[in-house]
């Protein structure tokens, strides 16, 4: 097991799914129990990654490499650095929670539901650990089918529309991305005389700037749809709103990160010339800023609780892409931290919405109000979720947003200024949301007898709350694992960056301030 | 009389038969008339074969094509009651379009071909060689033995197929 730790992390959910398929469909509780065990096992297996991870080592760790399709030069090659470590851990944690949260919510076709979920877990982890572009693409697409079913079978009234929209958007982006990948693959053959998809090999390429730009845009479409960045975001509200609670949680917390991860892992290091191209950076930053403001403004206008949370994702992910294209250590590290934060806080918010929906079968704000009186524990949990999302100091959101703003400020003051307004709007809609649901008097008699959180429901929140506070109070370990990989990427994209001594001193300071 | 002159005359005569028969085949309203026009056209083709010294083909054309296939056609026309199909529309709605397109393509082809074709020089025939039938047989059963055998399988399939299709109960 030792040499193949990462493979175990990757395939534990799949093994769990295979066993699950053997359980007869009538034994619903056994299926639920087994799915939870499998998800928990997935998390436990991934824990050693944290302890054995060497934050001072550069490059990838836990690397496994084997030939898969030698005829094409495709390898089964996986490994993680600090960035992937955080995202893998986020995936295993959120996976556990999402599966636990659906115990009562899913009553129909239980077996298929959990099978899809476990399959999806493997797909997502695969995306984050692949070091071979072909393998990456395979996992990237594998994620689509289970999500299609989770939305399309167990979703809300417009589930079919939402599911196919999600699917087609992502697949179209993926197909164009594939063309970009193949261009690199072929260029590598031209320059080095052999075919490979290995990312470290592809990094050695020397492309003409024009070709880099074309490939960049091909990648951009694939990743930007997944993030989603501003003009490509329209699938997201539909998918989020129609998906079952656990689906929304995984979609928001983990699936969206595949896009930002793609930018960090592939677009920047593989296409450094295009990534520093002023025009491209400006376009991407502009789209990020539009996303931040637009997402926040649209959230302000929502009458539907879940839609509000969905649009808030557009805004938060705007921060992540802004951080990436600030192209400095603060921006990048902040972006990764913010991705984790968004996973934690938005995950919690969706769980909060899901619990209310499970009890009342509505998400209209008008139906709620004063829930804090009947469900005090719930209200506290919701408050933590809301505040962490709004970026209150001592909670996780603050750390991420602050570091991103630092990075943005360093790159261009105007960007930071615009982004700050996004934070203000963000605080506004979140507080308003809280006020409309939890505070005040109970206006609707139906809300008088709602039961408070059960132990199981509370258990879904506790790990996330703990993590949120951990990042908020003591983010240092997180920044520590990010330091090396982020520095490497910046070094690769802007080779001159670290030669300026002033800014070199600034990088560690950022983490210090954040603390 | 100049034999060249006769050749030319015959060519135009047979060409007239071929094309006239062809046009009549596709324009006649009645299937029986079409079939008879087709026979005329085929006789023209047979004549062209004779002009080109393909005597064996001439015989095949007359016996097999005109004698066999056309009898088959006429037989089916008689068998299938065509009275009611005579009442139906005989031409497609887009017939004008189709005619225009095909004629355009045809004119183009004719124009393309109007220059004398510069085909590779032929090997002159040794005078006093074997007759046409023998030569055809020689080539057919040596060089083209394989397609000949495949054709036998093809005909088997055709026989089985038409029986399967046309018989009431198998």
């Amino acid at each position, binding site marked *: 097991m030792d040499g193949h730790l990462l493979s175990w992390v990757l395939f534990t959910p799949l093994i769990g799914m295979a066993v699950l398929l053997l359980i007869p469909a009538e034994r619903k509780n056994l299926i639920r129990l087994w799915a939870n065990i499998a998800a928990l096992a997935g998390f436990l297996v991934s824990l050693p990654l944290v302890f054995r991870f060497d934050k001072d080592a550069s490059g990838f760790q836990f690397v496994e490499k084997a030939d898969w399709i030698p005829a094409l030069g495709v390898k089964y090659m996986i490994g993680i650095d600090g960035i992937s470590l955080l995202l893998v851990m986020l995936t295993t944690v959120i996976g556990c929670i999402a599966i636990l949260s659906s115990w009562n919510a899913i009553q129909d076709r239980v077996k298929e539901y959990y099978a899809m979920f476990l399959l999806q877990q493997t797909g997502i982890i695969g995306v984050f650990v692949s070091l071979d572009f072909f393998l990456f693409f395979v996992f990237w697409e594998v994620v689509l089918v289970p999500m299609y079913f989770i939305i399309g079978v167990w979703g809300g009234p417009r589930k079919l529309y939402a599911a196919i929209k999600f699917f087609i958007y992502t697949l179209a982006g993926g197909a164009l991305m594939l063309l970009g990948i193949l261009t690199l693959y072929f260029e590598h053959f031209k320059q080095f005389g052999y075919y490979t998809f290995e990312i470290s090999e592809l990094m050695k390429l020397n492309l003409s700037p024009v070709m880099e730009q074309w490939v960049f845009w091909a990648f951009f479409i694939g990743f930007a749809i997944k993030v989603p960045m501003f003009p490509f975001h329209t699938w997201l509200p539909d998918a989020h709103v129609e998906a079952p609670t656990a689906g929304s949680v995984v979609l928001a917390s983990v699936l969206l990160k595949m896009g930002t991860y793609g930018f960090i892992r592939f677009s920047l290091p593989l296409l450094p010339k295009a990534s520093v191209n002023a025009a491209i950076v400006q376009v991407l930053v502009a789209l990020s800023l539009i996303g931040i403001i637009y997402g926040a403004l649209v959230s302000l206008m929502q009458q539907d609780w879940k839609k509000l949370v969905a649009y808030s994702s557009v805004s938060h992910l705007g921060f992540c892409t802004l951080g990436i294209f600030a192209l400095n250590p603060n921006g990048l590290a902040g972006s990764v931290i913010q991705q984790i934060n968004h996973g934690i806080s938005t995950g919690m918010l969706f769980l909060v919405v899901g619990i209310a929906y499970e009890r009342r079968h509505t998400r209209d704000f008008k139906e709620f109000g004063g829930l804090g009186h009947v469900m005090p524990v719930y209200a506290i949990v919701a408050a933590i979720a809301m505040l962490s999302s709004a970026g209150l100091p001592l909670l996780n959101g603050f750390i991420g947003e602050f570091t991103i703003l630092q990075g943005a400020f360093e790159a261009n003051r105007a960007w930071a200024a615009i982004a700050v307004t996004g934070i203000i709007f963000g605080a506004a809609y979140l507080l308003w949301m809280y006020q409309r649901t939890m505070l005040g008097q109970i206006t609707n008699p139906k809300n008088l007898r709602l039961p408070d959180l059960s132990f199981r429901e509370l258990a879904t929140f506790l790990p996330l709350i703990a993590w949120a506070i951990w990042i908020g109070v003591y983010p240092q370990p997180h920044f520590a694992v990010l330091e090396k990989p982020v520095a490497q990427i910046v070094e690769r994209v802007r080779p001159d960056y670290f030669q300026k001594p002033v800014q070199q001193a600034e990088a560690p300071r950022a983490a210090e301030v954040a603390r | 009389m100049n034999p060249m002159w006769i050749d030319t005359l015959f060519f135009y005569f047979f060409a007239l038969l071929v094309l006239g028969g062809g046009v009549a085949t596709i324009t006649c309203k009645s299937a029986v008339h079409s079939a008879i026009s087709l026979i005329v056209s085929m006789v023209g083709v047979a004549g062209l074969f004779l002009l080109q010294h393909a005597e064996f083909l001439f015989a095949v054309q007359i016996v097999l094509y005109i004698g066999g296939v056309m009898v088959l056609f006429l037989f089916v026309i008689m068998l299938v009651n065509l009275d009611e199909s005579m009442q139906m529309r005989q031409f497609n709605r887009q017939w004008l379009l189709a005619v225009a397109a095909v004629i355009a393509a045809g004119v183009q082809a004719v124009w393309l071909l109007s220059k004398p074709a510069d*085909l590779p020089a032929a090997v002159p025939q040794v005078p006093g060689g074997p007759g046409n039938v023998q030569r055809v047989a020689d080539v057919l059963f040596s060089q083209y033995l394989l397609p000949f055998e495949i054709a036998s399988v093809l005909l088997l399939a055709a026989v089985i197929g038409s029986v399967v299709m046309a018989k009431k109960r198998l």
Partner: protein
Amino acid sequence: MSYYTAQDHFVLVPAIMLALFGCAVFLFDFLIFPSPKQRKYLLFFLVLGLVFAGAGLWQQQSFLMSHGIPEITAFRGTLTVDSFALFFNWIFLAASFIVAIVSYRYLETENEHHGEYYGLILLANCGMFFLATGTDLITLFVGLELMALCFYIMVGFLRGDKRSNEAALKYLLLGAFSSGFLVYGFSVMYGLSGSTRLREVAISLATRGLWDPLVFLALATTAVGLLFKVSAVPFHMWAPDAYEGAPTPITAYLSVASKAASFAFLVRIFLGPLAASREIWEPLLSAVALATLTVGNLAALSQTNVKRLLAYSSISHAGFILLGLIAGNVTGITGVAVYMLVYTFMNLGAFIVLVALRRKNIIGDDMDDISGLMRKSPAHAVLMLIFLCSLAGIPPTAGFLGKYYIFLALVETQHYVLAVAAAVYTAVAVYYYFRIVRSMFVSETTDKLPVASSFGLRLALGVTGVMTLLIGIYPEPFLRLAQSTTSLVR
């Protein structure tokens, strides 16, 4: 001079076996008048014929490999066994086998269970052998007609069903029409070279100018004929009707084996005699491929009959395969071979699920008939999902590999516009494939009758399902095999 050498025999063995066992099936059926129960011996004959043909192919394959020679020719260059021919012949045999074993139950349900059917499958396969192996215009033409003729009959095999009759007639009319054009092109090719051997034709055509009128005439008419055969737009109109009306196993056979044979034929002609006029046909074929993708995908969007939907989807797949030929380099031709291989299994699989849905009084090819399949028979639904994902090109199923090769070839030859168009259409295709998925998994079932099942059906579904996944997950041996087919590219 001997007319039939040992080498000739060695090359011809598979075809002899197919034809002989075909005749054996006819004779057994005719002389013994088997009762319905005895008809399973016909199936036995058929499988035996395929096994013997496969043994012959295997010998040829191992001969080629052990001697390290690229090809064996026979009948003075009329037949050429090379890796390309062998690869496609394996596809034909696999398709024939799978189609035959699912037909048994289907024909009984249709009440048209006759021995001729099995014989015709073998003879059609025999025709395909000559299409993939032939390197002589006459042999190719006669082989093509042998295959086509068997298909005309099989498409119309449900004689009591008007849809089937009409499909057969339409297929025959347009098939014969296209054959006429094709053979017209062949006659011009012969005229240009004085020979019917592809190699000599290619040499003669190459010495003439690019815009030589006769070469152009040959190219135009041949291309029309060939594009008809592979149902490329604008010569596709026969396909949806023929597919819909034919007995479902034959639809599967038609869409897979006949298409594979036609593509083998098309590739041989375009990379052989017509290779010199590449400058002319490349833009033409690009336009045709784009139109094929467009029409196939867009028309499939609005279909409510699953068979018809799959017919349009198979038109769009033809567009994809044409793209491989347009790229025309080693990757492109490997792509054509790989695509054809994966297409065979995934498309057969999808149609076999439809075969299983044909039960008493239920035709089973409407979108409503497939709805709620997940509740009725999860195994069929999951298999269908795999086939559809593969058809849509989603990894790790085999279909992705085919698309991958086509994309790679296009990128490699810098046909970026075509590549982007093809990429966009893969997304469009998801929409209609997943309409079927939606119907299976989300909608409620409309009838209570269980899905038809027989040993043959289960075996066929198993084989196609396993192959679809296996080629996707461990493609190495199949790719090696496909990569050896590129000897055609010079």
